[in-house]
Structures are given as C-alpha cells and as structure tokens.
C-alpha cells in the first residue's frame, strides 16, 4: 500500500522573508528534515503542495523552487486567509507540514528544442520562477532554445525575487523584460500593462511555447495578443488555481467539468481549456 497521502511530512521553516513592499507576500524557505523525505518529494516545475500551519489548517501553494535546488522548498504566499496569515506570522525554526508534490507540471519534455516565452503578472510568478530556474540550470539549458521572461507588477516594490531578477538582467541565457503599470521614481525599464508590453516585444511564435500566469484580467487580455502573434492554443499553457482540500481528486471541490484541477491540473493548455466549461 502506498503511503497515506493525507499525512504531511514535517519541514522546518528556515526563512520567513517579506517579499513585497506592501508586506502582503512572504517567501517561506522550508528545509527537509532528512534525505528520505527529500527523495520521496520528487517534483517538477508547476507542481504544488499543501502546507500545514499546525493549529490553523492546510492550504495549497505552488512550489517556487526548482528541483535543481536541493534540500529546500520555497513558497511565496499572499496573506489572505487563516492558513496564510498564520504562516506569515510564523517564527523561523517552526515546524510545518507539507503534503505533495501534487498535480501535473509544465510540459518541459515538449518544450525541449523549442523557445519558451514565460509571461507572468503580480505574484503568480512562483511556479514560473521554478520553470525558468529549471531551464536555466546548467544541466538543462542546452535542451531549450531562447528563454524569454516577461514579468510585470503594479509597481517595482511588488515584483517578486528582485535579487534574482537583477541577476537574470545580466544573464545571456535569458531575455528578461520587466514592466510596471505606471511610471515610478528610479524605474528605468518598461512601463505598461503586460498585454501591451507583450505586443511591443512581440516574441516570435515560431517553434515557441508560451506559459502565461497572472490575474484573470491580465490573462484575458494577453491571450488575444498571443493569438495575434500566431501562437496556437496547443502551445499556450497556464496554471489554474481553485479552492482545494484533499489535493487528491477525491473531496470534489476543484473540478472544472470532468477535470480536477488538483490532480488533472493545475497546468492546462489553452486547447484543453477551450474544451472545458467556463467555470473557473
């Protein structure tokens, strides 16, 4: 019999970092307590896990680290509910529960030999960061063509992973475009919403996959741009969020039609989503 999928492993919160200027998003770095737990937790970019704040509950969050970063997992979490609030207030060194990895992942096998354009908005950049980090790894970089990241936030203070973005600016292996909604003092890069910046950058759709994550409004206006650039729906991927409990496709709340976002998703192509009812 497989292990009980309802039982979390215990991990140590080694860093609780305030990620954004509005202090609403923290990045938690969790450390595996032993080799066995880490080996059992084999994951890919795009997967998520259920985090337990003991005494408060459990909630699903996308994994922001890449499997190429051993020993730890990172999650960047907005403070919205009971569990996320408890996690935000948690002292470093506290033990948390982790169940996972759960769900499917970005089709990195299909991406091999192709260019990849990653488009992210706001704090939906977590599993996109995992994907970029994975492809940028020395072992994998040769498998992919051009990697372009278009990432935007309302203002500079709301961008996640600022140090890493600065690093990517100077990395010849990745073409990073960052943008903010309105001009801000000291900001010298793009200004404008993601859809218009994407249109301006106009990444070629030839032999290219696009991965788009962000607030619904951003996705809604970015998709027509990609369509104009001739990206077919089969080559546009996104990751969905849903209220979840079990994460195992049993408790019944995260379905879109026949698909359970927790086990059949969270990653879907636009071609797949077109076949599903519009109920998400």
């Amino acid at each position, binding site marked *: 019999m*497989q292990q*009980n999928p309802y039982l979390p492993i215990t991990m140590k919160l080694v860093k609780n970092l305030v990620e954004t200027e509005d202090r609403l998003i923290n990045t938690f770095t969790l450390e595996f307590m032993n080799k066995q737990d880490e080996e059992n937790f084999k994951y890919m970019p795009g997967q998520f896990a259920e985090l337990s704040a003991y005494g408060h509950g459990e909630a699903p969050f996308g994994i922001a680290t890449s499997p190429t970063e051993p020993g730890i997992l990172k999650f960047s979490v907005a403070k919205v509910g009971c569990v996320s609030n408890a996690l935000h207030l948690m002292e470093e060194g506290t033990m948390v529960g982790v169940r996972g990895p759960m769900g499917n992942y970005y089709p990195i096998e299909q991406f091999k030999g192709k260019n990849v354009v990653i488009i992210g908005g706001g704090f939906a950049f977590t599993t996109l960061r995992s994907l970029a980090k994975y492809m940028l790894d020395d072992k994998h970089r040769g498998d992919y063509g051009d990697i372009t990241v278009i990432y935007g936030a309302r203002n500079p203070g709301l961008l996640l992973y600022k140090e890493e973005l600065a690093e990517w600016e100077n990395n010849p292996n990745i073409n990073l475009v960052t943008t903010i909604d309105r001009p801000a003092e000291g900001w010298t890069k793009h200004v404008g919403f993601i859809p218009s910046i994407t249109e301006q950058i106009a990444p070629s759709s030839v032999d290219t996959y696009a991965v788009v994550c962000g607030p619904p409004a951003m996705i809604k206006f970015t998709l027509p741009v990609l369509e104009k650039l001739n990206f077919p729906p089969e080559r546009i991927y996104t990751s969905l969020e849903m209220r979840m409990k079990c994460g195992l496709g049993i408790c019944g*709340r995260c379905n879109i039609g026949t698909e359970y976002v927790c086990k059949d998703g969270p990653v879907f192509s636009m071609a797949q989503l077109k076949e599903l009812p519009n109920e998400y």
Partner: protein
Amino acid sequence: MKISKEKFGQAFDALVADYKVIAPVSDGSGIAFTEVKSFSDVKQDYLNSKLPPKAFFFPQHEKLMSYKKEGKDVTVKSELKVENTILFGIRPCDAKGMLLLDKVFKNDQYTDPYYYERREKAVIIGLGCTKIAPTCFCSSFEISPAGSEGSDLFLIDLGDSYEVEVVTEKGKALADRLALAELTADEQALVDKIKSAETPSKIDVSNTTSKLDKMFNSPYWDTLQEKCLGCNVCSFSCPTCHCFDISEEVRKNEGTRVRTWDACMAPLFTLHGSGHNPRDNKKTRWRQRLMHKFNYFVHNNGSMSCVGCGRCIKSCPVNMDIRQVVDGANKAELVVE
C-alpha cells in the same frame, strides 16, 4: 440455495463474536444501520434506511490525524483502527452505490486509506427488495431491486427462509458457516419472480449524458434551481455523494485534523481565498450536482453516479424530484450557440 431464518439467526448471532455487525434497526423515526449484537434486534421488514450505509466506510466526521505542538516542534500521529465488519441488509441500490464510491476513493493516482481499509475488511450481505417504494427508481440504472451486484453474499426473503447467493470469495467464507439447503421448485419459482421485478418508476437516461454534453449554457438551469433551499440534505442522504471538507479542531497546543461530509450545494464549497467563487449561485451549483452525477462521472468512471434509491426525493423539504430534473434535461430545448 436457502437457509431457514431460524438457522440464519443462530449463525448471525455466532458471527457477532468475530465481527462488528451492522444491520437495519428501527430507531423510532425510521430505519438506521446500527451495530447489533443479536439477530432479534434486526428489523427485517423495511424499505430502506433514512441514511445510506456509506458512513461505515466514509464517516460523516472522522479524524485523519492528530498533532501536538511543543514550542516550534510538532509531533504528528495517525492511527486507523479497522475492525472486521459485516453489513447486513444492504439494499441493491446501496450496494451499487458502494461500487461507485470505490471508484472515487481509488482514482488513477491515489488510494484513500481510511476508506479502503474499512472497505476491505467489510463483508456486504445484501437483501433483495420484495417491496418497492414509490420513490424507488433503481431500474433506470440497470440495477435490479433483487440484484446481487455489489454484495458479497446476497439474500432474498422467502418468508420463513432466505434464498442465498454467494457472490464473491468474501461471501463464500461467510456462506461456509451457514447450513444451506436446496430450494424447492416452488421456492425457485418465487425467487425467479422476485428477481424479474423492476421498479414501477423509471427514468430514461439513455441519452442524458450526451444531451448534458451540450447543456452547460442552457437556460434550463436558470429556473431549475428556483425552489431549492440549498439545505444539502440531498447530498448527505445520497449513497454516491462523496464531497468532504478537511478542517482543524484545536485545543491549546493539541489539534486534530478531521474530515467532514460537505456538499457541492454549499455556497462556500468553492470560495477562493481571494473572494472569487466559480460557483457563487444556486444555478451553477445545481448544474454541478446534475452534471457530476449524469455527465462528468460517466466520462470519468463509465457509469452514472445515481443509483435510484430515492432518498433525495423523500428528504427534500421542497419536493424537488431528481427524476423530474433529469426528465426536464432530457426534454430541454438546446440553444444554438
């Protein structure tokens, strides 16, 4: 084969020593599946229980694990004690319902250990229906009121004796403890007659799934839900409904993680942390309920997740009748999009 009720009762009482035995008991307001110690406590003449017997595998409220926090540390404990159990007197609709729940609690990726360990240690003794309620419509789903599908051992009441059918290996192990005799020709004729019965009430579901494929945006859902109160009694009394919530019960530094029956008819069921709710009105929730049972489940598992037990019809405070709802969908005009 058959066994006299007297001998069956003796064998039943002997089984109580080795098994936890669950059977229908009259609790004053109806029939409830309850642990019994003697066959004399068993209600033998009944239509069906108020609540389906699914709770013996999937309790309304159960502990998944417990934990204790000490400073920054935590210790997590989970223990699942499962007894060998006999469920006696399960009606064919409910036995089929368990087969459908089996598909949910073991999907293409995961097995739910709480459900499955109980399920594997349980023997189902089915009891054929010789009386049929006006709300029964199991024949709509190729379930026979006296069909043995889903039971391990299956009985039909012949008055002073039971006809006994061994359905599975588990059932055979129990049958070995029964002194079985051959049926007489008259008894066989009676068995055949009972077995050929159908529920007078039947709905036509032959094209329902393919019709629903095209009905997500139908105006049918606009009016369907108007009288529904959203009380969830249909889900809680359904032998195939399986939705649950997971929550935390905390006292000082100790806590328990529990799961509790939930329902897709509950407004908060799909509410995101952000405030967004993909099914934020009764219309979308009713559509989900019907679609799940008669369309999504069929696509995912090959059969409808309704067994025609009629409990939702009996218990609905505003007389919503799933037979009429399905019939309405069958007859609804398709809107060209």
